[in-house]
């Protein structure tokens, strides 16, 4: 009797899994997927990575990383914001990664995910939690609207250094995504 019950349960489980997966396949085949902002930035087309000889990188990620890199430089030299990013100046730490490399990677992941990339994940805190000193002891004070506006200004400068004009449609879309984070980041 116990063997029969177990067999029935196993069959039910297998049937359920098959139904769920087949249903999801049917629904995804039915409707075309709209292109994402990440697609506009180059998407998943693989290109040579200029920073790592012999390796490939998604064009979309390369575009994002280039803008992030330039923006990091602008922020690091901007006294109104660099106080929030002193970890940029740490030298080699865990896994022989510097503060610059860690911030570059995680900011790139964050922006890629926000732009619709599917091959990367951002495992950090939410923007609300990350900028709330009560939830994130690293934040030595709440960010102001002026801080956030300056961040957007530095991002615009960083994009410009990569030939992305502030009026380009992709940058306008990216700016809207960034601006949508203002109410989460600014908590004063």
């Amino acid at each position: 009797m116990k063997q029969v019950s177990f067999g029935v349960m196993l069959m039910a489980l297998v049937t359920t899994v098959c139904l769920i997966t087949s249903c999801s396949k049917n629904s995804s085949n039915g409707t075309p997927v709209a292109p994402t902002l990440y697609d506009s930035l180059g998407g998943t087309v693989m290109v040579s990575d200029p920073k790592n000889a012999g390796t490939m990188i998604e064009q979309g990620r390369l575009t994002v990383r280039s803008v992030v890199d330039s923006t990091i430089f602008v922020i690091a030299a901007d006294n109104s914001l660099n106080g929030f990013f002193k970890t940029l100046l740490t030298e080699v730490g865990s896994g022989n990664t510097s503060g610059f490399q860690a911030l570059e990677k995680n900011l790139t992941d964050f922006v890629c995910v926000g732009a619709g990339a599917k091959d990367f994940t951002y495992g950090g805190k939410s923007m609300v939690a990350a900028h709330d000193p009560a939830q994130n002891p690293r934040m030595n004070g709440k960010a102001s609207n002026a801080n956030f506006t300056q961040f957007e200004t530095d991002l615009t400068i960083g994009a410009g250094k990569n030939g992305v004009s502030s009026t380009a449609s992709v940058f306008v879309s990216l700016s809207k995504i960034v601006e949508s984070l203002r109410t989460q980041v600014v908590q004063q």
Partner: protein
Amino acid sequence: MAYSNGIFKNVLRVSGIVLGLLIVVLCIHIYWVTRPKAADASTISMARIDFKQPVTQADAGRITTWLYAQKGVDHVLCNPDSKIAVFTFYPVKVNASVITNHLTSQLHLQAERYIPTEEELKKGCPVVAESYTNKIAGFLKTIF
């Protein structure tokens, strides 16, 4: 009944031993992957030089050109308004403090390398993923 109890206890004991061994292996793996390591050829760091005198646009150009000419320097940005120059470099090729000293002597500029304190490094935005692995790694670091 006694027979099934004995089997159950054996299963529990073996499961416990296997689970314990897996946890030990996981801890060793996490420590091995996240332990501090020396820089290698692909490691790139950022350094900052603060100028103790006014910096004109022409000065910024000179500083930028000079820094780019140094072996091991990758990318440079000099902001004359904030009197700051930041540059990325390969630690295996060059020492940022040495670069700073050479810059001040060769370009005759009053400047010093800005190095944040330990306390300052604990603050600010790291944008670091705080995955479960990182939290466990952080715990292990307190032990090792």
